[in-house]
């Protein structure tokens, strides 16, 4: 009986968790060797996570959005500054010290409510839309989430499947730091993941089926670990490290899936929630979550996970760095908000009809690992000195 999304109101530690824990315990203890068990089970730790971009030449006919400092010229213009005033402000910005602080404050407070300046990052809808350029291309990585092919959808460059929904890529793909390929992640994501990967508790996957060496139905379970990933001397995650699954049910989800021709996928898409990190998304949420990963010769997994991601999750995930991130790595946060709204295509609000989520795809890699259940009284994740 395939499990759908796991309903989790806060504070459920009950019979359901325990029985699951028992089942995991039994199978974990048996998982010490190459002998046959009733069910074949393999676990993995996700060692790479980033947005999936498939940037190609000419996919931004209106041009790549300019770097932040240049973008700021437009920000000032949109606020109503005259050209000479704009020049003056940008000069101050470059100077450093107090002059720069003043110029930066104007930029920070570029939202307007009743004419009064408000923080543009917190109230992005009150900032004039700079109309950032978006992707116009035939190809994008991802999944056909709504089952339809339309003008708004892409073709998958690897499988040639049509109707691919990845509006997030469309919205972000003309910003320099969000451009990348299947094998080379966008700069922003390399930076974020690089900052997180050694500290954030790891994401775990367990695949269970009759015989994982051949095609057939499987159950795919997601968990969050108590430990962060263990990396080895080569910079990759070490295989076969044991991780304890966090008993907190918020990150525990099961999906029905299948293995076919060395490809692992979810057959019964549903809601996926995984706690992540305040450096990025505190909670990574995908509605209608799809998965497609290749099973490599060395036993590792490599592929994509996608679905509809709530707009605010994504927006605040990247805008929370405020002016510092904007200056460094994201170009124009309120502008991004407007782009996201413009391209959103999922979970329409029942009253207003406005879309509250956007189709997205992320790249993930996983290596073999052992997953054991943690005791209910798990330790806090604070490393000792």
């Amino acid at each position, binding site marked *: 009986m395939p499990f759908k999304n796991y309903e989790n109101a806060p504070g459920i530690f009950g019979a359901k968790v325990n029985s699951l824990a028992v089942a995991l315990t039994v199978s974990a203890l048996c998982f010490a060797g190459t002998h046959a068990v009733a069910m074949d089970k393999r676990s993995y730790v996700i060692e790479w996570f980033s947005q999936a971009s498939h940037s190609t030449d000419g996919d931004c006919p209106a041009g790549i959005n300019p770097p932040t400092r240049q973008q700021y010229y437009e920000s000032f213009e949109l606020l109503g500054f005259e050209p000479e005033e704009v020049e003056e402000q940008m000069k101050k910005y470059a100077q450093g010290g107090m002059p720069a602080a003043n110029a930066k404050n104007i930029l920070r407070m570029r939202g307007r409510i009743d004419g009064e300046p408000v923080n543009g990052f917190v109230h992005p809808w009150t900032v004039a839309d700079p109309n950032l350029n978006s992707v116009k291309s035939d190809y994008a990585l991802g999944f056909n989430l709504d089952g339809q092919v339309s003008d708004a959808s892409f073709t998958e460059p690897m499988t040639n499947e049509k109707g691919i929904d990845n509006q997030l890529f469309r919205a972000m793909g003309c910003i320099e730091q969000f451009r990348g390929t299947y094998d080379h992640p966008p700069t922003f994501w*390399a930076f974020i993941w690089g900052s997180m990967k050694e500290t954030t508790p790891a994401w775990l996957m367990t695949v269970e089926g009759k015989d994982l060496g051949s095609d057939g139905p499987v159950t795919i379970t997601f968990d969050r670990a108590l430990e962060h990933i263990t990396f080895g001397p080569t910079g990759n995650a070490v295989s076969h490290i044991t991780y304890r699954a966090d008993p907190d049910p918020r990150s525990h989800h099961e999906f029905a899936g299948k293995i076919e021709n060395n490809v692992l996928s979810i057959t019964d898409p549903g809601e996926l929630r995984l706690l992540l990190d305040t450096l990025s998304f505190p909670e990574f949420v995908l509605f209608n979550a799809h998965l497609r990963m290749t099973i490599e010769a060395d036993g590792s997994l490599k592929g994509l996970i996608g679905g509809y991601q709530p707009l605010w999750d994504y927006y605040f995930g990247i805008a929370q760095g405020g002016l510092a991130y904007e200056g460094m790595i994201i170009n124009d946060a309120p502008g991004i908000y407007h782009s996201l709204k413009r391209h959103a295509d999922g979970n329409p609000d029942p009253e207003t009809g406005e879309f509250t989520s956007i189709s997205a795809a992320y790249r993930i890699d996983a290596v073999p690992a052992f997953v054991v259940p943690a005791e209910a009284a798990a330790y806090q994740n*604070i490393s000792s000195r």
Partner: protein
Amino acid sequence: MSKLHRRTVLRGMLGGSAITVGLPFLDCFLNSNGDALAATGASLPPVFGTWFQHLGLNPGMWEPETVGPNFKNNIQLEVLNPFRDRLNIYSGMKYFIEGKPLQTHTTGSQIAMTGEIPFGTSGGPSLDSSIADVIGRRTRFRSLEVSFSGTRDSYSQRSGTSINPSEGSPAAMYQRIFGPDFKDPNAAEFTPDPHTMARKSVLSAVSEHVKGVMNNVGANDRARLDEYFTSIRQIEQQLAIELEKPAPLEACSMPPSPEEAPPGTVLEDAATNAKLFGGLLAYAAACGQTQVFNIMVDSMALRKRGSAYTWHMATHEESVDDQLGYQKGVFEFNEWANTIFAEFLGTLENVKEGDGSVLDRTLVLWLTDHSDARVHGLEKVPVMTVGNGGGRIKTGMHVSAPGDPVTRVGLTVQQAMGVPVNTWGVDGNETSNTISEIMV
């Protein structure tokens, strides 16, 4: 019996006079003018320095292709080719943070210089401080810190609460070293260090006694005993040399007072000041004013004249060029810094001392905060040393140590400079694994 008696008496007396050290002891090592003895064979003291340059190097463009000796410099370090034989490149190593938050540009620097990520002001001495404790105890300045941009920031510290700030103005540094308080080392009266005198007296007394009492051994053990005494004797000789007036510093002469560029973040001005500081430090070493220096390039804030686009911005904003495969603007900044570094080394080499130069007895440790600055990478961090501090390490080597902590280099350098340490660093950055390939 009487013969033995006399011999024993002499032995005892030597032991006796060695114990009661005082000024008379000093006399027998100096001639009546107080000049140094000619043929001491003593070498000039070593010089140690750090060159701290934020923002790493372009990944894949600095690592030599081959490992070991006889490597060829990759494109980004070609400007250092004149110093290839003195250069060691260390690749593949990382900064470990294991669960602690990454403070970009700071954490890597802290690990590089102190081996640990401190809580607040809890840190210990930076490695240059530990080295100065060994080689810089008797110079006027335990160490000198300079910055090219004028900032007072520095990673050199006695402890977390006692940082050695950088001097940003060459003119001010000139005044500090060669101003009114400067004393010509070749004219000074030499006073031997009492601590060294005490050490030598104890060592000599003890070894004399042991020699006398322990002469009843078989042939095999006698050979080993002789080896032991030869080793002890060498220490005694080293101490004796330290108690003598040091050899004259021929290369010491007053450098001209510098006319500096205004301190600030402009690249061209920083280059001017770098040249000036290079000269000052070279002469400071030649005149025995210091044996340890720390240089802060302060890359983050540097920018070309007229542009607001800083080096730091470039690392994050600039895209990887499709054709070239690297960040072009960042490459130019790195090239600029490496050129300045080469010029600095050239300045040290131009101050001649006897058959050699100040550079011959110098070891410079090149450190940075990240590998791929674009993503604040902590893996495959570039580390270099130039020079061998007067024969203390082997050079001309590319050492590859994938996955090892960068602190291996810090540990090895400290050991080479005589710091009695066999483990350095904390938690994941803790290591006792000396880079034996470069140890002599």
